[in-house]
């Protein structure tokens, strides 16, 4: 087995053949066996396989985008389950973007945030309020709901509003550290939810516990977005953008500053890194992705109410980050995908299957033990197992590796261009 893997690692052509065969086979199985969730998941897993190939980044991106934007929807589109597959895929995308946002805060900057879903809620309500008649209650001007065309602008507004709230939260919160920070952010998350739950009086802004119904669907060139298969593409584009931004930041001066602050605050400051600004930036950037996906979520559900933004949601996103690997972008993507699919597909399918079995009298399982209800229990077990056996997560974060050739090539000035220092090294 090991030998085979070695051969595979050396040989790019072989890798190409393997992955092509895999994609074709899973594509055909899903195409033919529409009801097979397994086929759907196997096709999705081709991306994981792709991650492990040694192709260049560009090739990986191209293949990945082709699979996600063409093959997956095409293979799934042949039966009744199409929309439910796309629904799952859309939600997976939304959660991945959020987990990537949280990963900046927790994984890179090392700030434990237990109220992260608040920014998602802020994005959702930002669009929800103005894309329903709700805004008529308090806005002195304008006609509401705004048309579905405004959705695209709201993606940006939601992003900015969430970032601003990220900074507002950050300013008081950054005075505390570690466990205290976790508690304060947890409080923030709950406060935001409770405010949305109660802001129906004195002025009715959020419509309280009743929520906001019939949110305008997005419109583009007269086309209304109603189905998960359409939202899928919106989410895909935002997600790709998110991954792009996160990657760029991670390997930049800002990303290094975040990691330095995580590793040692005092030393980071001594290196000239402004602590507060760096942390606020992490909060703002992390929150902005969530805010954007909040807008999409509101439009997709066409209904927003406070129950979607509970502490359990924040914890779920954190589980995704921890499971995948804190600070690791591929890891977090995998973690978010696994947790979401486990939640939406595996557990529900398992429950359905067991129900059928009990209906036909093969076995009888008490309702309380149905897998869908054991979600939290299963999360708990997973977390404990990971803490014990794989604390780094599924795909642990990797440091950038540098090539010695690249480092050696420039032979110009040494430290601030001061002369005479060039040739003196300290090895002997």
């Amino acid at each position, binding site marked *: 087995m090991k030998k085979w893997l070695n051969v595979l690692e050396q040989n790019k052509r072989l890798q190409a053949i393997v992955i092509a065969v895999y994609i074709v086979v899973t594509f055909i199985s899903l195409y033919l066996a529409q009801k097979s969730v397994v086929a759907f998941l196997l096709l999705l897993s081709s991306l994981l396989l792709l991650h492990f190939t040694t192709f260049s980044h560009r090739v990986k991106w191209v293949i990945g985008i082709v699979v996600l934007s063409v093959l997956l929807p095409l293979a799934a589109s042949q039966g009744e389950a199409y929309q439910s597959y796309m629904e799952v895929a859309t939600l997976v995308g939304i959660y991945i973007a959020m987990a990537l946002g949280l990963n900046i805060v927790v994984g890179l900057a090392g700030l434990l945030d237990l109220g992260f879903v608040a920014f998602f809620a802020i994005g959702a309500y930002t669009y929800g309020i103005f894309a329903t008649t709700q805004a008529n209650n308090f806005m002195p001007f304008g006609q509401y709901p705004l048309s579905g065309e405004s959705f695209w602008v709201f993606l940006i507004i939601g992003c900015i509003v969430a970032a601003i709230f990220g900074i507002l939260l950050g300013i008081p919160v950054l005075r505390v550290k570690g466990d205290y920070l976790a508690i304060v952010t947890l409080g923030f998350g709950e406060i935001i939810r409770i405010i949305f739950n109660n802001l129906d009086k004195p002025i009715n802004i959020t419509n309280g516990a009743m929520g906001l119904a019939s949110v305008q669907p997005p419109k583009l060139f007269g086309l209304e977005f109603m189905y998960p298969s359409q939202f899928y593409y919106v989410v895909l584009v935002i997600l790709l953008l998110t991954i792009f*931004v996160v990657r*760029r*930041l991670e390997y*930049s*001066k*800002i990303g*290094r*500053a975040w*990691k*330095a602050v995580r*590793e*040692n605050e*005092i*030393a*980071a*400051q*001594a*290196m*000239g*890194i*402004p*602590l507060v600004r760096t942390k606020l930036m992490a909060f703002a950037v992390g929150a902005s992705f969530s805010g954007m996906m909040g807008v999409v979520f509101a439009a997709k559900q066409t209904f927003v109410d406070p129950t979607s933004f509970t502490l359990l949601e924040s914890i779920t996103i954190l589980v995704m980050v921890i499971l995948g690997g804190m600070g690791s972008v591929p890891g977090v993507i995998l973690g978010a995908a696994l947790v979401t699919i486990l939640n939406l597909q595996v557990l529900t399918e398992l429950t359905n299957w067991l129900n059928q079995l009990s209906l036909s009298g093969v076995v009888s399982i008490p309702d309380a033990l149905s897998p869908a209800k054991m979600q939290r229990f299963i999360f708990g077990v997973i977390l404990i197992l990971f803490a014990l056996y794989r604390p780094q997560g599924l795909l642990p974060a990797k*440091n*950038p*590796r*540098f090539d*010695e050739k*690249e*480092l*050696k*090539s*420039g032979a110009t000035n*040494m*430290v*601030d261009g*001061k002369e*005479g*220092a060039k040739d*003196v*090294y*300290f*090895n002997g």
Partner: protein
Amino acid sequence: MSILTVKQLTKQFGGLTANSNINMDVQKGSITAVIGPNGAGKTTLFNMVTGVYQPTSGDILLNGESIVGLKPHQVAQKGISRTFQNIRLFGAMTVLENVMVGMHTHLRSGLFHTMFSTPFMRKEEKEAKQEAYRLLQYVGLESLYNEEAKSLPYGAQRKLEIARALATKPKVLLLDEPAAGMNPKETAELTKLIYHMREQLQLTIILIEHDMKLVMEISEHIIVLDHGEKIAEGTPDDIRNNEKVIEAYLGKGATTAS
């Protein structure tokens, strides 16, 4: 010409006076040592100079300009850098990345350049990597550049702290017990390194050190603290023969040692 002046500096932690009315004048381009028994207040002095602690009273001047009240990162930007007694590396980052973090304030690429990966940004990053590598060569750690900082042996970690501090392009470098935990060979290398840094990089160096051989060999000026007070200062010879210092710190054997 003095580059760093400390005037009547006092620091109290509750009832404890860790530094009491310290006066100090550091000449540009000199190597100054701060010595004294454990708990004398040496690190506290460094922490005040670098903005980690705010003084209870007194003033600190860098080139005649007060730096009291500045945040640590602002002090760093003014040109004072340091290493730590209890090593504070960015453990999970690579050796090269650690040094690159030190360049933070000298890198100009903001969000825009980063997002669009502009040629300016790529050139800057490339040069930063190369500069970081040269700094590693300078302290003799270049072969370990891709290792995680926390995996390095103790002596190498101390050297890495120096390389990282140099990356900020300081005018004044504060070394807090740089030889602690080093073997004699490493200490000898360190001695050479400190000399060279002063000569080649025109640095002013202040170091805290318990290794008297190193201190006496390397420093031009020595300041002795005891119980938060300055009990003596002068050349190595002055200090070696100072009764108070012998009693408080060096012990009887020191006059013959070195």
